[in-house]
């Protein structure tokens, strides 16, 4: 990256950082959780005005064309203060799919401008977790089947659904409150909600179909996965910072607990884990920019595997180093642990992505 690009990213980071801190930081996330609305309309509007939602959308599609590294900087900041609103799903999935598949649809401009974004329903449940295929079917008019792990559907008025059709895959739009749409809410450890959705002859509007849909889906999912990784790494940065503050103030046996070598070594290991994760996420986002679909997916898996490993290790160690207060809801460290559980599980955890990364590496090796 050029110096100028780096400077742009630094400015972007500072402005989003300030915006989120002014909005209340982690205390705001706690409030949103306790009020169980999962949505802070004022903040959403501010984020839109700051250019957050269209950051990675090309200029010709009405976005700001700053690319994935810029979106990653934003995701890191969102993670740092915990942001229960579905910003990454909006940027990566909803807006990411629309700018690739239906750039002229007014819903894209509306989402970039801060309208409530549609929720994207693409994964399906199999007996062992995520099904490897898409069975939900679009017959030209109506949708039949089921989707799961849909984020942001509680607030959304529209769902964007990837379904199979006679042309391969179809990208369609459905009203969340429409006939034949049944939503099942599943509460998550961080207080957020994911939905399972069942369609029985639900009226759907076709937005795109054919091979373009499968390519756009793979690219958008890869982007979102990498952004979720960036959010996780922002989160673990916070967890590490809170923990270092704590061990520098808590005294037992007449000295700071951070003065015990056993604690110091563990804090150092957390720091190393964090720095490796931050460097990995920065590098992968740059490599992904402009890469083909296969390379994009492989790098996204690398990012998510590293971020999940780091965030899980750091948040769990953070609880231990806080001792009993770490297990209370009153201390913010527990909110970070709970958020890490959700972000790690969403779009694949470390084990899943390590395997995908190896599969992709072997496939690439075979074609070279």
């Amino acid at each position, binding site marked *: 990256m050029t110096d100028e690009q780096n400077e742009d990213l630094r400015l972007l980071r500072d402005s989003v950082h300030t915006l989120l801190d002014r909005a209340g930081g982690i205390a705001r996330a706690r409030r949103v959780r306790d009020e169980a609305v999962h949505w802070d309309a004022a903040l959403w509007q501010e984020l839109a005005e700051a250019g957050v939602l269209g950051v990675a959308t090309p200029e010709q599609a009405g976005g700001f064309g700053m690319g994935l590294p810029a979106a990653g900087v934003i995701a890191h900041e969102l993670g740092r203060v915990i942001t229960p609103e579905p910003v990454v799903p909006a940027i990566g999935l909803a807006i990411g799919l629309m700018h690739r598949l239906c750039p002229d649809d007014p819903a894209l401009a509306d989402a970039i401008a801060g309208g409530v974004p549609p929720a994207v329903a693409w994964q399906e449940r199999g007996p062992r977790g995520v099904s490897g295929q898409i069975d939900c079917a679009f017959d030209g008019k109506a949708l039949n089947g089921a989707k*799961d792990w849909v984020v942001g559907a509680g607030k959304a008025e529209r769902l964007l659904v990837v379904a199979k059709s006679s042309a391969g895959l179809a990208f369609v739009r459905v009203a969340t409150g429409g006939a034949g749409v049944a939503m099942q809410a599943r509460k*998550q450890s961080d207080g957020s909600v994911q939905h399972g959705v069942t369609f029985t002859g639900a009226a759907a509007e076709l937005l795109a179909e054919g091979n373009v849909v499968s390519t756009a889906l793979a690219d958008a999912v890869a982007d979102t996965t990498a952004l979720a990784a960036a959010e996780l790494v922002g989160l673990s940065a916070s967890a590490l910072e809170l923990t270092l503050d704590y061990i520098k103030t808590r005294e037992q046996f007449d000295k700071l607990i951070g003065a015990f070598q056993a604690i110091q070594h563990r804090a150092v290991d957390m720091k190393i884990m964090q720095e490796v994760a931050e460097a990995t996420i920065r590098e992968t986002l740059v490599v992904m920019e402009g890469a083909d679909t296969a390379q994009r997916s492989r790098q996204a898996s690398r990012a998510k595997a590293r971020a999940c490993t780091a965030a899980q290790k750091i948040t769990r160690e953070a609880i231990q180093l806080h001792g009993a207060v770490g297990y209370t809801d009153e201390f913010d460290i527990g909110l970070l642990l709970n958020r890490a559980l959700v972000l790690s599980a969403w779009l694949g955890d470390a084990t899943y992505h390590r395997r995908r990364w190896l599969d992709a590496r072997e496939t690439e090796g075979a074609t070279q």
Partner: protein
Amino acid sequence: MTDWNTLSDEEFRTQVRTFFESEYPEELRHLPHRPTFAEIEHWHVKLHAKGWVAPAWPVEHGGMGLEAAKLIIFYEEQQRHGVIRGRDMGVQMVGPLIIKFGTQEQKDDWLPRILSCEDIWCQGYSEPGAGSDLANLRTSAVIDGDDFVINGQKIWTTMAHDASHIFMLVRTDPDAPRKQQGISFVLAAMDQPGVEVRTITTLAGETEFCEVFFDDARTPRANLVGEIDKGWSMAKALLSFERIFIGSPALAQNALGQLETFARGRGAFEDAVFRDRFSELALDVEDHAALYSRFADQLKRGETLGADVSMLKIWVTETYQRISELMIEVAGPDGGTIGPLQVGNVGVDVLASFYKARPTTIYGGSNEIQRNILSKAVLGL
């Protein structure tokens, strides 16, 4: 009255198992949360009628008078059947304290009400500034006529909001040369104007821990147990038998069973990597049990346990955490979901297991403290 100790181990085990299987209420088996007394009163009534509330107490005080070997069998059967330990702070902690250090009057006064659960006890040890460093406690008890006047704060007091009495360590001599000196054991009623209880919400959303505030609370001087200013060594003596139970394999064994059920339902056993990780954990649990038996045998022979028993707690709690973490991995995209995840006809609450495992490395002497004890007392470092 039966002298249980004259039975063979096998015969005793059968009797205990039969009683639990026929009498223990099904809805209370493997209860995932700590119950209030009201929830388990019907079970307590049965247990009391049977005379089995206090297996470790001497017969003359209303206990079963079990020797170590029988006691271990009793607890093993209890855990195997998923019988809750109930609100047993009175039986486990206060009773033994009074039996060992109390006056005849205290024995006559308190022990029967512990057995009947007319009094429900909570333990007031930790304070905000006295966790790992418990001897740093500051809650004061000052003599005023026939009473102690108590001021200060306790924290992590389990189920204090559902307790009628608290047994607590208090500072009676603030000028003692060492902070382990000048600490006393007193008993106090919770239902009085100077005592305020606030529940603490955990990150799992539960409220079993409390803070207890004392603002000129009073308790009669007759409620001092043992000698004044000698509470510290009494508290340590109390823990000696308990220390093996905090290292018991039960929690990890139950979690491993849940992992197996869940992983079979999700088809994870077809995966070679999972098989390796599962068998590693299963062996960690099984082999820990071998070490546990070694310590249990020591108790059965009537020997006291040394500091080395801390190894059990470190190993089993950390294994338990790894099991619960692997369950989260098997859950994959459902790993952040609250409530039971359905596999076949059963629901496995993966997240509850994960949460339950977290504080085990913190409470009962954090694993850091246990390692310090081992390095000093066992390795001589």
